């Protein structure tokens, strides 16, 4: 081995701490960082385009940021130095993060990255560009990116993230080294919640299980009591579905819960972004804004509105997954399977629902949830899709 290449760190340390339950992926990325840190003029055999994939909540963007930080760090990702910390938050001058709230990444989103990619790193070791939603590239923006990825300057690294390799244009995918993330084990998510957020072990275990190991959702459930209350409200909905009228009212309630949840998730971030923008424009605390500043603020507000719409859809989908988990539990009870219930704390409700219906009804209901999720993803009016779902979930005594 060449001098200067140290032994791989025990995984899940330093900058990798928050990449939960991804032993194999972290090992791959960490090895690449160490190989690339060989001193000398050359890039040391670094792969210039990476594709990190994994299901929602598996921590794709955390992994990408950690990778970016480790590449900048003199100690290959200590997690403590200035390089590591700024890279993780996206404040490092040589790390560029692109996330979008749009349905598509547009040419005008990608073009600035392509020109940044041509520049040598200003103070770090690498110029790292992370695209968090590479599945949203369309043909034109994808082709533009392709040209940049094909012939990268020696010190540029692209990191693309997407739910699965199939979601990324094949021309781009074929030029990337692929790293797959899995759904992390609930125990690892629970441990993260305890370590990072000081969450009580019982609540951490509940949150990890209830969120289906979706790290962001689990964190929200663990630290926000209101989120737990809202989830409980959602899971209580099936009990109320005794008539079509009640089903339609329940659908309205579910939409309201989703809207509140999305709002609580975005409000704080919206305000912080606005303050940041005003500060960067030198208009902090100004009572009246000059027109140029106002235009930028308006642009930001439009983006935030789009993000809120997307957040509401995401939260709604999450709620439907919660309801799905309830009926999966019902099915488990109906089949008498010896499997731990996702919603163990709602054992009585689950029992009641199991007794009131046959397994084939439960399967039909689970299918209806899947259909509603597909419809919402396909842009059906969310309220209408949820109304139709609640109608199917209804417990009809005789039909």
């Amino acid at each position, binding site marked *: 081995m060449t001098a200067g290449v140290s032994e791989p760190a025990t995984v899940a340390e330093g900058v990798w701490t928050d990449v939960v339950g991804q032993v194999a992926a972290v090992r791959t990325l960490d090895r690449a960082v160490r190989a690339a840190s060989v001193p000398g003029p050359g890039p040391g055999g670094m792969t210039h385009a990476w594709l990190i994939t994994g299901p929602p909540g598996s921590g794709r963007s955390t992994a990408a940021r950690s990778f970016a930080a480790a590449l900048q760090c003199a100690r290959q990702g200590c997690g403590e130095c200035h390089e590591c910390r700024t890279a993780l938050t996206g404040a490092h001058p040589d790390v560029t993060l692109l996330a979008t709230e749009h349905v598509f990444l547009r040419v005008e989103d990608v073009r600035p990255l392509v020109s940044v990619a041509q520049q040598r790193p200003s103070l770090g070791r690498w110029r790292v560009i992370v695209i968090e939603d590479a599945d949203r590239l369309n043909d034109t923006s994808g082709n533009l990116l392709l040209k940049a990825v094909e012939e990268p300057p020696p010190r540029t690294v692209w990191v693309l993230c997407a739910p699965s390799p199939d979601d990324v244009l094949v021309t781009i995918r074929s030029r990337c080294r692929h790293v797959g993330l899995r759904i992390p084990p609930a125990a690892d998510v629970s441990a993260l919640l305890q370590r990072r957020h000081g969450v009580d072990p019982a609540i951490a275990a509940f949150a990890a299980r209830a969120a289906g190991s979706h790290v962001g959702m689990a964190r929200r459930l663990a630290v926000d009591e209101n989120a737990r209350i809202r989830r409980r409200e959602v899971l209580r909905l099936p009990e109320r579905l005794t*008539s*079509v*009228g*009640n*089903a*339609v*009212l329940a659908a*309205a309630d579910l939409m309201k819960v989703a809207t509140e949840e999305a709002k609580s998730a975005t409000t704080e971030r919206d305000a912080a972004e606005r303050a940041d923008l005003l500060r960067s424009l030198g208009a902090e605390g100004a009572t*009246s*804004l000059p027109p140029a500043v106002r235009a930028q603020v308006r642009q930001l507000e439009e983006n935030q509105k789009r993000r809120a719409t997307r957040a509401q859809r995401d939260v709604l989908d999450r709620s439907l997954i919660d309801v799905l988990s309830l009926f999966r539990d019902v099915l488990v009870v109906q089949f008498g399977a010896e499997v731990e219930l996702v919603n163990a704390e709602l054992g009585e409700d689950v029992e009641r629902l199991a007794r009131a219906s046959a397994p084939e009804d439960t399967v039909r209901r689970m299918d209806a949830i899947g259909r509603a999720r597909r*419809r919402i993803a*396909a*842009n*059906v*009016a969310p*309220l*209408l*899709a949820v*109304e*139709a779902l609640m*109608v*199917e979930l*209804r417990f009809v005594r005789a*039909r």
Partner: protein
Amino acid sequence: MAATTGRSAGRTGGTRGSTSSARGSTVKRATTVLPEDLSPAPVVLVVGGESLFAERATAALVRRAREADPEVSIEHLEAAGYESGQLELLTSPSLFGGGTVVLVNGVEAANDAFATAATRYLSAPTAGACVVLRHSGGQRARGLLEAARKTGAPEVSCQPITKDDEKVDFAANEFRLLGRKASPQAVRALVDAVGSDLRELAAACGQLAQDTSADGDGRIEADVVEQRFGGRVEVTGFRVADAAVAGRADQALSLLRHALATGADPVPLVAALAAKVRALAKVSTVGRARGADVAADLGMAPWQVDRARRELAGWSDPGLADAIRAVAQADAAVKGGGRDPVYAVERAVLTIAHARAT
């Protein structure tokens, strides 16, 4: 003319900007007036983005000025391209007597020369002159507005109307100004049809008042609105939905085909069906309770509750379930999930019409 009674009625109905600021007014600026009530004063403020209100205010003011003095001269100035001395010249007492109204446009973009001249004029206005400052919003030249307010200048607020409820108030007030009555359903239908543009809404009110007879109680009803503005997709959607939930399959289908043939977008048509069926389903939960008592809980207007209750006759729970399923399926189809979206909407309409008997 009926306008006199209309104007006093307008005070209670009011437009949003004027009523709210009148209520919140302080001694210093107890001078907010409705557009149609504006009369000449040394300085007059017309502030806000809705140009319809501003035009009305200016027209009313000019009319009154001419009533008082048929020889009055009306002058126009642009505050952005103002050249020193113009204001002084226009407002200086004329050798031949007679007053002047100076309409200053674009105060929000005033140059320094105008700001200086206007401030000077505020401290020593000319007898017989009236300077109208038109400011269409934003923070620029706010200082000038504040200074004018301190002198007690009358102000017309021309804030744009955005909420549907306020548009309904506006349209109802328009009919009052025209000396006509319209049913709440008619006003609502009109706002649905043409409410996206206030000027168009005002024009539609005028057209309806002109086209319909004021004989009898002379009330303008929703069916007339739908006749005149029925080509608009929003109204068409609701007509299709009305016919469908009433079980009139043939009528619903022919209305739908007509709408689609004349280029209506199927997406709002489906949304109208969804809204209708949703209203029926919600109201099915409240039994015989009074519309006014349950409306808020259901997120509906009392008249919507009462109407849905009438329409609910003949509907059963399974029928409602079939209707909701069909509408959701149609929405998926028109959003690109089906091969033949038109067929999907037709099917939904027929399913609803037949579900009523189920």
